């Protein structure tokens, strides 16, 4: 509990005063993560294991062919940005994660509000949808929507192609929607009933109470689990490679196939993995930091 002590000088879980701006994040926090011991250690671990593999391999083959490092450098532009003139690679994974998160959050917010609705039908319907997508395997959802959604949409005379990654993004946004829905429901439920009562006695309508009083208080509680789901989503984006989308995973496999040498298997995947790690680990650390900060500071 020591880390919770903060400025109160005690390690008891005391109620701290509400500090406006406590939720803001500035450059110092990023610097803190980048220079934190644990982050450095984890990063070093990844790099060392890779260098070990690299040097062991170089010794094995002698100076005849290109080193693993040269191979990685050669394929990096493709793995990172996709084939020339096309959109793909690791950047596509990040773009998919952004769009799926935005879409899932938007839908999940309304779904969550539906779950706390006073209308029994809406409440029930939103609960069923939430449970359905929360408890379905992501890969099954991906396949399902890949086959369910059309390849083309005709609007008048124009025919719009629905690309694979767009469909995959939509499919990935559904479990995010369901989990955000649960986050919203939980956060709304955790606000003391006294807040509802005092708002009611001041003649606020239910909608006003929800948007002006309850939800603003929920944001702090929702941000850490929401960020957690973003990390999980990002880690899950390589799933779309199974559906033939040219993401980082697919292109890594392509590069491996082009090289045709099984020795590259481990370093290549490790290379890709380290990108995901470097992208996600700061977010995970940030989430933990916010969780600790909000744990007693409600």
């Amino acid at each position, binding site marked *: 509990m020591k880390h919770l002590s903060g400025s109160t000088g005690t390690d008891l879980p005391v109620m701290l005063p509400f500090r406006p701006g406590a939720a803001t994040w500035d450059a110092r926090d990023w610097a803190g993560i980048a220079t934190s011991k644990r982050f450095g250690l984890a990063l070093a671990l990844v790099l060392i294991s890779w260098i070990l593999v690299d040097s062991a391999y170089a010794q094995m083959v002698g100076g005849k062919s290109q080193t693993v490092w040269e191979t990685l450098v050669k394929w990096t532009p493709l793995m990172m940005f996709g084939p020339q003139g096309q959109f793909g690679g690791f950047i596509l994974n990040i773009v998919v994660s952004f769009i799926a998160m935005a879409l899932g959050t938007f839908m999940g917010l309304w779904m969550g509000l539906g779950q706390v609705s006073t209308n029994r039908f809406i409440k029930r319907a939103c609960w069923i949808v939430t449970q359905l997508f929360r408890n379905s395997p992501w890969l099954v959802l991906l396949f399902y929507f890949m086959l369910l959604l059309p390849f083309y949409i005709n609007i008048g005379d124009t025919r719009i192609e629905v690309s694979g990654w767009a469909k995959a993004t939509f499919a990935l946004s559904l479990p995010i929607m369901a989990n955000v829905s649960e986050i919203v429901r939980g956060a709304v439920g955790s606000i003391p009933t006294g807040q509802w009562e005092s708002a*009611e006695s001041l003649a606020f309508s239910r909608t006003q109470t929800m948007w002006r009083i309850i939800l603003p208080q929920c944001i702090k509680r929702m941000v850490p689990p929401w960020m957690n789901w973003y990390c999980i989503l990002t880690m899950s984006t390589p799933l779309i490679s199974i559906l033939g989308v040219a993401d980082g995973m697919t292109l890594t496999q392509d590069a491996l196939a082009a090289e045709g040498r099984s020795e590259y298997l481990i370093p290549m995947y490790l290379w890709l993995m380290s990108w995901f790690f470097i992208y996600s680990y700061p977010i995970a650390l940030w989430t933990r930091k916010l969780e600790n900060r909000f744990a007693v500071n409600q």
Partner: protein
Amino acid sequence: MTSTWTPDEPIVSLKDVHKSFGDLEVLKGVSFDVMKGEVICIIGPSGSGKSTLIRCINALNDIQAGSIKVEGQEVNTPHLDKLALRKKVGMVFQQYNLFPHKTAIENVMMAPVLVLKQSPEEVEVHARSLIKKVRLEGKEDAYPGELSGGQQQRVAIARSLAMNPDIMLFDEVTAALDPETVKEVLVTIKDLAAEGMTCMLVTHEMGFANEIADHIYFTDRGVIVEHGPPATFFKRAKDPRTREFLSQIL
């Protein structure tokens, strides 16, 4: 919905009010009248239905039978205009229930701006005068978490007053406070009563009730056992239940 109420009629009138939570009957036929400008205190043992009674008056709890009229308007009806009722009746809670993400002045301003759609500039002038009235000048921009219990409760009183109510309900407003901050809240209520505000208090502060109330009601097990002006109520209680309660407290 035209109200024909005139100030010489009771401003709040309860007739045979019954309230149940499931099988548990909390109010078993409560009747009394409150005149405009009157201050009444409801006392009684825990679980006797005091808080429920006061919450029924602004329809936070519904009732199963009987009639509650506020300024001649029936509260126990499916066609109740809750907005109109709650503009007339202000309420202060035991746990203050301030909005923690808003400053003191924002707490006071919120309802008039959002509910009554008054202009923020006018509301702010009024809000500042209310903060002054509850003796919290300088605390306008403090968040509830930065204020003591007594200060928060006074902001809560100012917040209710911002709606210009005709009646104020106080539900054990000092029960959660440190003893040293109780007084500052009671002084605020006393000021209000002196200005002629109709006040209904549920309280355990017998000394305060004795000093401020025009009329005291003693409730036990869902009924009003005894009532009267403080002078007779505290000195010459007739009912054995009242006597027992008073002997435990005084």
